[in-house]
């Protein structure tokens, strides 16, 4: 019977080979992508922006995407696998700024262009194109505290505990809080950037009956408004991100005062553009390019007009409405929504 045992691997690898299908398209570069959060609307838009930009540029033969839920050590593994795959450039959304330094250094040594998007990295040879996360939180929190009249209780709904984007945003939030000494944090929770978790948390908080005058969220926003409406709680000012669902609510939900702070997931497409520019010999003047956030509120007529222009009900509610970044992305809306890369 033992001879059958050798068939175990044979069968498994046959199944493996059968499931493999590789196709090629026009272009000259292969770009590797590494991302460590899967199933989150923002990150999915980022990946789609990368695919759409690679396709629109016409310069990319193939995208090699390592996209799964993992930690910094897992991302190191993915980056090293991309080095083994001999890609020309790696665009990475880092799990941690310092934790993947060794892998990025090895990539640069292997002659691979490294671009970090969304969050910074400590590896000096890497180029960075990122949203300014500290400013993101500061802008929204400051506006919220002003709406609250500079006093009262705020519900602080953060992102994922320990994530660097969350700790950067915390700095911005605390900076705004320091400017308004009469604003107190009524409740601080980590939503983990998960819609269901965020909704549970706000419902439990509402059930306590504790008073609150405003809600700041780290992008889990539309479900919070849903919860307030469903439980007929007072509609206090809410700050969220520019997710399609929330931007729509700011125009449609009666009596809701709120603001959306932009945090474009299309930064992924910008990262691909930057990588291609560097591959073609056009290096940016600085190692780090920061994209500054904007605030769209519905308290003024001017703000309402901006919101109206930005709203896009055709997008998934979890997707940011800023699906392109001027000067950095060249794809069409159809291309990013289709979410197809070269050769797909």
């Amino acid at each position, binding site marked *: *019977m*033992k001879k*059958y*045992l*050798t*068939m*175990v*691997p*044979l*069968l*498994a*690898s046959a*199944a*493996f*080979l059968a*499931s*493999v299908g*590789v196709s090629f398209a026009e272009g000259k570069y292969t770009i590797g992508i590494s991302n460590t959060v*899967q199933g989150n609307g923002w990150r999915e838009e980022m990946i789609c922006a990368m695919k759409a930009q690679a396709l629109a540029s016409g310069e990319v033969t*193939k*995208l*090699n*995407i*390592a*996209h*799964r*839920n*993992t*930690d*910094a*050590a*897992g991302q*190191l*593994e*993915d980056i*090293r*696998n*991309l*080095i*083994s*795959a*001999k890609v020309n450039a790696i665009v990475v959304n880092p*799990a*941690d700024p*310092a*934790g*993947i*330094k*060794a892998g990025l250094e090895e990539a640069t040594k292997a002659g691979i262009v490294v671009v970090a998007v969304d969050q910074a990295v400590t590896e000096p040879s890497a180029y960075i194109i990122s949203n300014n996360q500290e400013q993101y939180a500061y802008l929204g929190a400051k506006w919220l505290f002003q709406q609250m009249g500079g006093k009262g209780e705020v519900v602080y709904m953060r992102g*994922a*505990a*320990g*994530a*660097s984007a*969350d*700790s950067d945003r915390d700095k911005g939030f605390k900076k705004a809080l320091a400017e308004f000494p009469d604003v107190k944090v009524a409740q601080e929770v980590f939503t983990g950037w998960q819609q269901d978790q965020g909704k549970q948390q706000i419902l439990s908080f509402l059930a306590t009956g504790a008073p609150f005058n405003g809600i700041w969220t780290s992008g889990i926003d539309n479900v919070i408004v849903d919860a307030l409406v469903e439980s007929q709680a007072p509609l206090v000012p809410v700050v969220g991100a520019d997710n399609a669902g929330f931007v729509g609510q700011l125009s449609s939900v009666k009596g809701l005062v709120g603001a959306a702070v932009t945090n474009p997931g299309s930064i992924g497409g910008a990262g691909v553009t930057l990588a291609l520019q560097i591959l073609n010999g056009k290096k940016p003047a600085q190692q780090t390019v920061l994209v500054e956030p904007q605030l769209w509120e519905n308290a003024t007529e001017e703000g309402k007009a901006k919101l109206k222009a930005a709203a896009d009900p055709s997008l998934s509610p979890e997707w940011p409405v800023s699906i392109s970044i001027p000067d950095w992305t060249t794809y069409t809306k159809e291309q990013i929504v289709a979410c197809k890369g070269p050769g797909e």
Partner: protein
Amino acid sequence: MTRFFRNQGWVAGLFALFVLLFVLTKLIQPGYGSGDFGSLVRAVLPYAFAVAAQTVVVIAGGIDLSVAAMMALTSVTAASMMNGASEEYALFVVPFVLAMGLVLGALNGILIVVTRVPDIVVTLATLFVLQGAALLVLGAPGGAAADWLKASIVGTLPIPGLPDSIDAWVPKALVLLVVCLCIIWIPLRRSKLGLSIYAIGSSELAAFRSGVPVARTRIIAYALSGLFAAMGGLTLTMSTGIGAPIPGPYLLASVAAVVLGGVALGGGKGGLLGPIVAVFVLRLVRTDLTLLAIDPNVTAIIEGAIMVAVVMFGAFITIRGRPAGAMP
């Protein structure tokens, strides 16, 4: 040789699968060489220790859901202790963190033995406790690791008398893994204690009636699990140079590799070699999926499908291979 294959058939099959996958990798990427193998071993390290931690308790008839959280806690503890400290200080940090894993693991065991609450509940509770404790130690990823620790898993170990071409295939990370596992596993396997761990996993009542101190053995099994998890936590800090308070995907991966490695989830059967080879197989599959640029949403399905296929096929062979009349 026949006897070896009879005892180690599963492991041999897994090893053949690994070799086959390696050949496949070479076909996909002809440039895949010793440097890439070094990367593979470094990726294997935290998984291998997580699997070792899980294997010990599964053999003893239990399960440890707190493995990944324990790794996170020990990793952040090590990283925050080494932050801004001297290189020599790390010589103290390493044994401290290992002892911490041992004690916390023993605590798991004591809770199970004393409260008689099922292990799956106790370790689920400690999962949350340890996860929270990790966030108390470091609120966000950070800390540092001593340079000599980071260097100890980078590059290859020069072995005198061995030609460079072969030496290139002996990465330091592999040596570290083998030494750390053998130093604990081989003496354990040959001792009365090791036999007792297998005995309580096979049948607690039979072990008890044979005079095996069941409670003590269980506590030691969990303590060893904690020790292996602490080693895993240290390798996380060694490879990333930081500590991250959110546990990585090591819990489910450890259970998967234990099953794939031929350890019976009911306890009492299997060894450490199988699960470790299984980890290599699973990591190499991940490498191949990346090299082939498979749609990332499909990769997890393929990984899972391969696992189920191998385990089911193995079970099928085992049943068919049984001599007539041996069916229970």
